[in-house]
């Protein structure tokens, strides 16, 4: 399975058992992408990392 990076439009190879919510790296631009849906396949920029106080 292949897709196109929404950031750099580079090709991305994907595993067959991909699941919604996974975060995958783009090998070309390094962007972290979230699998927004599997059918149809849709990728978007991964959500921002949150800051949290404490341990």
């Amino acid at each position, binding site marked *: 399975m292949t897709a196109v990076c929404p950031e750099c439009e580079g090709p991305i190879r994907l*595993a067959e*058992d991909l*699941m*919604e*919510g*996974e*975060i*995958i*790296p783009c090998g070309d631009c390094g962007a*972290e992408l979230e699998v927004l849906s599997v059918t149809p396949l849709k990728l978007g920029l*991964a*959500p921002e*990392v*949150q*800051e*949290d*106080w*404490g*341990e």
Partner: protein
Amino acid sequence: MTDSEALQLLEAMIRIPSPSGQEAELADFLVHRMADWGFRAFIDEVGNAVGEVGVGPRTVVLLGHMDTVPGEIPVRYEGNRLYGRGAVDAKGPLAAFIVTAARLARRGDLPCRLVVVGCVEEEAPSSRGAFFVRERYRPDFCIVGEPSGWDGLTIGYKGSLQAVIRIEGPIGHSAHGRATAAERACDAWVRIRSGAEAFNTARPRAFDRLLPALTGLRSGGDGLTEWAELDVHLRLPPDLSPASAEAWLQEQVGEGRVTVRGAVPAWVGSRTTPLHRAFARAIRRAGGMPRYLLKTGTSDLNVVAPAWQCPALAYGPGDAAFDHTPEEHIVIEEFWRSLRVLGEVLQEIGHGVRP
């Protein structure tokens, strides 16, 4: 083991006080419990409680800690909450590790070696338990037990440097108008704060800022000389190493002598590893949306992750906002949900995962 029995284990752990340096009673309790449940359990050379189950080509270290900060909180249930010191930081996560490993072992299909460690002195500058464990294992995956919430994954922690600053000098009459050691120590602290503010210019995220805290202040003298000491705790961003932070601190305090009591660098891992993927899947299956967290505190992940170079993160039930507070408690349903997430994650990564 039922959810109710899991909760009983957590309650029993909370009822055994275990501030840093006084973990022996809890370690003995946990080793006996783990042995009853089929673990190869022992107390290691520095006092960590260790339990191993399963065999297989892969090793997963579940690294919790037994110690808490001081301060007794009456152990009690209020509605759906369990109160007590360590409920979230971090007996809840450690209990979740033990229960999950025991459940998988009892089912008899544990496809990997699980090593559960309850470390000593995570809350102390020494991090003695984690430094010992770091040299003993080379796991394929590591999960550190700290409160992230059942649907959260902690992917990074700030670094930390704890130091004592001592200022000394000949004593003089206070009517002579010269600055006392105590006053010069106060001036040093003001310089540290203003220096940190300058460092933090154009750094909007707390994770990227240098956060100083004054945690102790003492002064005295013997009639001939006088002294003052500041206990300072610096929370370090990823681009400030402990060595650089020590040099920065010395620069701020000038005449004072800086003695470092403990330090670890910040650590931030990738969130695209098989371990993170397994958690994301399990949280999704449980009806949640994975949250990825950078913490302003420090944990044993800072100690082991740079050395082990394996997929690693911190996970555990509980709201870290209650760390070290008089209101420390855990929501029982959250504790139970974390058991299901951990069970699925360990099954998945134990069976082997795509890279």
